[in-house]
């Protein structure tokens, strides 16, 4: 059998182009099933290393993923994955993507290693390389001891891991995970999240994680796209939010604060007072120790100091509300 080098070279090109090229680019993307609009005029450009797709059930998350993989045809607009058009370059996209579906998708009569090897071969790996990669992928996800067992005998958690193994076996540039923690108990969930973080931190591929569980997305993603009823409800860069949140403080004081608020405002901080609580945004160059110093100088006792964090839950609820 002759071996081609072209596809591998294409893969390398995509790898080097990744930082400049958006992972997902949607330009007025709409998808319709019959008379029902599932996705409506989506516009965005996502470049993060780990992107979360959030939304309530029926928001269109899975439909968006299936459209990006070329399973559903857009009725209008365009979508690009790693710079490739989903209408015309589906095969190239599929060559660069590893997909872990939401539903049970494993052939129960096959052993895990045989199944993962077959999937890697279908992605284009030669049989020997596919076998090696199958073993490595199963070791990587923690199924090494069970890799010769039939998939039908696996527990739900093990099946999820086997699905992850088949998604990474061929060395994709983009890993799409659809509800990866579905049906997992807390320990299996944290193991799965740790695994996704490890893969993300390897910096050899980008991740799109689709979930309705806020914790999963918050624990693994840098960027979040929130969908609601087929529309983009909100886009948030969690990394920047986290950095920005460090400037928001919430203080609870004992007794009257005297001229403490004025002194802090003189440093350039914005303050809002309610009874014995004080919310403030720290000015550039002002540190928390400056706040403690001013409080000590005025004999103001600080009972509690919190960073006011806009959690993903807040962001999500705001997006749903809007």
């Amino acid at each position, binding site marked *: 059998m002759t*071996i081609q080098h072209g596809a591998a070279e294409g893969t390398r090109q995509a790898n080097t182009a990744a930082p400049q090229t958006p992972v997902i680019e949607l330009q007025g993307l709409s998808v319709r099933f019959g008379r029902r609009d599932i996705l409506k005029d989506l516009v965005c450009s996502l470049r993060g290393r780990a992107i979360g797709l959030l939304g309530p059930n029926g928001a269109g998350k899975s439909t968006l993923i299936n459209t990006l993989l070329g399973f559903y045809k857009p009725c209008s607009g365009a979508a690009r994955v790693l710079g490739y058009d989903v209408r015309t370059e589906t095969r190239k996209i599929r060559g660069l993507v590893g997909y872990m*579906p939401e539903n049970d998708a494993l*052939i129960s*009569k096959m052993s895990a290693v045989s199944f993962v090897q077959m999937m890697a071969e*279908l*992605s284009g790996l030669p049989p020997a390389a596919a076998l090696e990669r199958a073993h490595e992928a199963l070791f*990587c996800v923690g199924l*090494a001891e069970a890799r010769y067992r039939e998939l039908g005998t696996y527990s739900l958690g093990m099946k999820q891991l086997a699905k992850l193994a088949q998604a990474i076996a061929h*060395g994709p540039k983009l890993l799409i995970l659809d509800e990866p923690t579905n049906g997992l108990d807390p320990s299996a969930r944290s193991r799965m999240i740790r695994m996704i973080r490890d893969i993300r931190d390897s910096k*050899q591929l980008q991740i799109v994680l689709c979930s309705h569980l806020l914790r999963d997305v918050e624990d693994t993603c840098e960027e979040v796209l929130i969908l609601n009823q087929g529309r983009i409800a909100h886009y948030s860069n969690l990394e920047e939010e986290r950095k920005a949140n460090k400037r928001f403080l919430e203080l609870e004081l004992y007794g009257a604060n005297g001229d403490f608020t004025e002194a802090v405002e003189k440093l350039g901080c914005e303050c809002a007072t309610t009874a014995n609580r004080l919310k403030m945004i720290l000015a550039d160059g002002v540190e928390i120790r400056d706040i403690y110093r001013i409080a000590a100088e005025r004999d103001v006792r600080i009972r509690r100091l919190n960073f006011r964090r806009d959690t993903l839950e807040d962001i999500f609820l705001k997006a749903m509300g809007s």
Partner: protein
Amino acid sequence: MAVYRRTYTSYSGVLTPAWSRFLVLFRYSRKNLFRSKLQTGLFVLCFFYPLACLLIIYLAHNLSFLEKIGNVGNPFNIDNRFFFVFIDVQGVLAFVLTAFTGPGLISPDLANGALPLYFCRPFSRAEYVLGKASVLTILLSQITWIPGLVLFAVQSSLAGPEWTWDHLWIAGSIVLSSLIWIAILSLLAMALSAWVKWRIVAGALLLAVLFFGAGFAQAINAVMRTQSGHFINIVYLMGTVWTSLFRIEADRSMSAAEAWIALLIYCGICLALLVRKVRAYEVVK
């Protein structure tokens, strides 16, 4: 093999050519097929009749041996009817083999919801169908036209070039009649396997389509006093095509062209059923 690696590493090695990837499905499906002792036994059984035919051809050209055992003259006539009977018998065996093998090709993938995993790779639906069809095509070829051509070659070598030249069309008939039967069986088995997720039910349905189809056709003919019922009888249609290909005199109520068209329509229907069902996710409108 670096199985000690516990972290994710990307792959930057060579890739196989895109056209050859349907053979991956062929290899895995075939390996799975011969795990069953029943199917392996059945496959071996399919070679008994070709071996018997080989013996008959040998005996037909060794009259001295026949005379030794008391026979006078040549009781075996190796002609178009001989090869017609050969294809007929092997065709029945091919059907039995398909009834056991065919339903297990697509139904496990559908029952387990594995199709999205196939199609999220650079692997099309056409390649999937081709990969699965190649399992049956190659398997059935091994018991129909390949041994048929071997028998024809043996007969040719024993009968001489004059016989070969006069009967060369039989070789074409062997290949063509086998291929149309293989195409019908493969597509029918795969279509039923795709629509009925239970393997056993799909196998039973394949038997039903052929046998009940024949019975239903007879009933239509009897009740409506017509011959058009034969159009739903695949066995009758195949018989018409085969008799015409092997130039056998037979009283048929339809022409070979009509039978060919009907069979091609059945192939088209099966393909349409496959296209409708073999997709990553079914869109419910």
